[in-house]
């Protein structure tokens, strides 16, 4: 009887261990992400995938309005998507993820689909994370910075990002002011930043 109990306990432990090692779902150490359905996204028409694990992350800003509540940021995410998908005619919102000043991460194209954020050379090899707002003259609040850093750690845990991934500012790889002087100064101090 006790022999069976021991085997049962072992089986459960082994199964849990294996599941944790192989699981591709959001592990318990990943922070919450506002899903596409939650922020009312139009369906994506994109099909090009990213080859993982990705080596580069490009940080940008939308240079548009910022938002500091979930209700406002939901609307802003929709606005950005509308501009990209309807006006610019892209398959979806350009970014892989969007960060709001409400401190929440908004799911864009996600970890698996190639974005349209940084041009033909960098889109297939990077994850594009944008901060919703204009950060030339102000910095995002700490909760937004935290959300981005937590998202990046999550990417490594999921195997979507290489553990030695490199962060680039949008202006490091394209001729642009993005992500704004203030936010650019912030990301240059991040551990994975590499010019």
């Amino acid at each position: 009887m006790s022999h069976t109990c021991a085997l049962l306990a072992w089986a459960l432990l082994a199964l849990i261990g294996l599941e944790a090692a192989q699981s591709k779902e959001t592990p318990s150490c990943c922070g919450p992400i506002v899903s596409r359905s939650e922020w009312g996204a139009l369906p994506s028409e994109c099909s090009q995938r990213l080859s993982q694990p990705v080596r580069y992350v490009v940080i940008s800003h939308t240079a548009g309005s910022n938002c500091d509540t979930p209700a406002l940021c939901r609307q802003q995410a929709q606005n950005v998507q509308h501009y990209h998908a309807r006006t610019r005619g892209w398959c979806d919102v350009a970014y892989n993820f969007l960060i709001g000043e409400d401190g929440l991460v908004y799911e864009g194209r996600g970890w698996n689909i190639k974005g349209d954020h940084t041009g033909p050379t960098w889109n297939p090899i990077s994850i594009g994370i944008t901060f919703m707002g204009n950060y030339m003259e102000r910095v995002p609040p700490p909760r937004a910075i935290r959300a981005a850093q937590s998202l990046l750690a999550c990417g490594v845990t999921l195997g979507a990002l290489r553990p030695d991934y490199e962060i680039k500012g949008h202006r490091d790889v394209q001729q642009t002011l993005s992500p704004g002087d203030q936010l650019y100064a912030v990301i240059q101090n991040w551990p994975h930043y590499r010019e």
Partner: protein
Amino acid sequence: MMLWGLLWMLFVSGLQAAEEKCVLAEGETLTVNCPVNQKYKYSKKAWQRLRDGEQPQTLVVTESSQGTLSQIQVGRYILRDDPQESMLQVRMINLQVEDSGLYRCVIYYPPPKEPILLFHPVPLVVTTDTSDKNPTTKLTQILTLPTTNIPSIPYTSSRTVTPFLPTPTAVISPNTTVNLTKVTDTIRLLVFSIVIPVACGIFIKSLIFTVLFAVTQRSFGR
């Protein structure tokens, strides 16, 4: 047995952070993409070879940049500079065994000014082209292990481990530049990445069977 499982998981995560060597056969082309910051748009870029105890050898340098797409070829070295897209692409065509060594992309300044390292130094290993499928070929291909899912190694289809454990001395031919310690590491890698997942899989299946058996026994035994 629990320790084995833990060891396996630790090893797999360790493997994902392992250094990558570029291993190619003679005649093949090495392609390296080195990101170049926008601020170096108008700078010269170069591909250099690093040799122990010597000054870096500059193999090819871009001409003065107008900030637009340009390409230069010197012998078997080709540089494609795309300043707008912030990328320098290096190609070494028709690789020779003697090309094996350490290389790097740099922003080039005339000496004595130090160059600026781009990307990471690239360790290149060029193997002789062996047309027969002997263990040597298989072993050198293993050095290009992807840093992702270990089960994706093509050799797992046979599921027998013994053919992949030749003694290192029998496998290394004088022409390969693979040294003994790396071979031992690779074999250890293979053992951990094939033996243990297979063993764990079988063990867990038998455990589940035992549990289900015990449960049915108990409910029928009452």
